[in-house]
């Protein structure tokens, strides 16, 4: 199995390398919104002293950490996978004795991330120089705890995206469903603003949804904002979601493949 992943990596990495300019463009696009947010929130916080208890430095901290966390936990499964169903090229993968989503699509995601990372590191350092964050609250324990949380966040959201993309087996097109999924993600993950700025009800809902595992929970861990009980609860929620999305993905995949009409080919 290791050899399969290794060779999948060679193929996927070579392909990413072909599209490096494309990836860089995507990176710039992806950076815009967090940078704008830092700029806006810091100027508001500077003018008012703080916003809901968050200082300008808190915002800089939050968004710079968000860039790192999101870099690791995000996935582009929907963009990779849905078109394979749409144009029928998935046929070629389905007749091979490996799981298309859990091998090839997974590795494509990782290759894409690695390619992004090459452009991301210098940009991040540049931003850190400009915004001069004070990372005083960040400790080693926090960072170490965030590592499994980031991994958990990636797996849960990868499988969830996998299930959402598999809806393509029924509808062929999933882009509008994806928009809806992304809207939920933006609202409940902490992607736009730190969740503590959201109305109490939304915060409460977000706490129990899987989206915050991808952004908010790891950031809170890195920033040492959680009590041991909260940390435990956070991981517990994460593992429950892991179980749920594994079952969900398995079911959607099995039923979806049955329905796959091998379009085109």
């Amino acid at each position: 199995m290791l050899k399969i992943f290794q060779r999948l990596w060679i193929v996927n990495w070579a392909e990413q390398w072909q599209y490096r300019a494309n990836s860089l463009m995507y990176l710039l696009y992806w950076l815009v919104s967090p940078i704008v947010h830092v700029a806006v929130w810091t100027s508001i916080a500077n003018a008012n002293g703080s916003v809901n208890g968050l200082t300008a430095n808190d915002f800089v901290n939050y968004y710079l950490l968000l860039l790192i966390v999101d870099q690791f936990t995000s996935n582009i499964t929907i963009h990779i996978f849905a078109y394979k169903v749409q144009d029928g090229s998935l046929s070629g993968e389905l007749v091979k004795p490996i799981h298309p989503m859990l091998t090839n699509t997974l590795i494509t995601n990782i290759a894409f991330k690695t390619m992004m990372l090459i452009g991301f590191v210098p940009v991040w350092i540049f931003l850190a120089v400009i915004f001069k964050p004070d990372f005083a609250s960040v400790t080693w324990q926090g960072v170490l705890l965030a590592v499994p949380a980031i991994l958990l966040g990636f797996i849960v959201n990868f499988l969830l995206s996998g299930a959402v993309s598999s809806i393509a087996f029924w509808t062929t097109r999933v882009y509008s469903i994806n928009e809806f999924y992304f809207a939920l993600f933006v609202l409940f993950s902490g992607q736009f603003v730190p969740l503590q700025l959201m109305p109490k009800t939304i915060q409460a809902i977000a706490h129990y949804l899987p989206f915050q595992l991808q952004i908010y929970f790891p950031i809170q861990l890195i920033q040492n904002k959680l009590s041991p009980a909260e940390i435990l609860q956070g991981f517990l929620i994460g593992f429950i979601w892991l179980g749920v999305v594994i079952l969900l993905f398995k079911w959607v995949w099995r039923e979806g493949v049955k329905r796959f009409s091998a379009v085109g080919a």
Partner: protein
Amino acid sequence: MSQETIIVENLSKTYQVPEREGGFGAAVKSFFKRTYTDVKAVQQVNFRITQGEVVGFLGPNGAGKTTTLKMLAGLLHPTGGTANVLGFTPWQLKTDYLRSMTLVMGQRNRLAWDIPAADSFLLAQAIYRLPDDEYKKTYKELDELLELEPLMKKPVRNLSLGERMKCEIAAGLLHRPKVLFLDEPTIGLDITGQARIREFLREYNKRTGATILLTSHYMADVTALCERIIIIHHGQLKYDGSITDLSRRIAPFKLIGVQLGYSNGHDLSRYGEPVQNEEDAEKHYIQVKAEDVTRVTSRMLSELPIHDITIADPPIEDVIERAFNE
């Protein structure tokens, strides 16, 4: 004793295709209530194929060939009937089944587009868990037959269609499958390319004793390779038997196409039966018995102001229509 590799019983596939009239009103209506029509792609098909046989699956476009092939490869669930290949039910997509068969569909691709085929080959080695020595041996054999080596290091997208097809087929055979499903393996290739692929498949079958089921709408593919032919038309099995019996049934005709130097006032019906050909409106076509071709063409050449003349086999659609719908 020879074994039955493929057993197909009453296999059927009906697609539900959404349908609506054009126009805004119909679009709104279909939003609330979709209407579907049933398209019977494959109806109650039965056949058995013995190990080592090379069987040609023949029929016009839309006849149900590819649908049947996809069901046998496990990509489609049938709406009725059963199939058994090597003891497996294909659409359960069992790993052991996927390891022992291959499906090659036109351009659709075992090869990653932007990188050299060599990398895709090594990936296949890992996926099918082939030990190095076994892989090298198979690769050497395939290279001998298909001359792959010069193609291996170029990005796949820089290969010609024929070169790509050779690599596609080879990539599908690295794991030495016992059953080969080939969908139009020679489509888009020139005559030499087609001949090479045919030659290769014949040799491969001889060497490995693999069972081959291939679809084509080139008559030549099938006559060159297969002793047995299955004809499917409008989703139904029309013929299953030897190619010699079939040619006895199908009266051999040729199409003669001519481009005339001036006005169209010539009556071609005195040479043969005039037929329509939409693809080539420049020319006038007539259909004559194969044995009369030489006589008729020389008469035409001496009597008519001919600029260009072609002689070809009639399209397989016409042949089948003629043989089975009379």
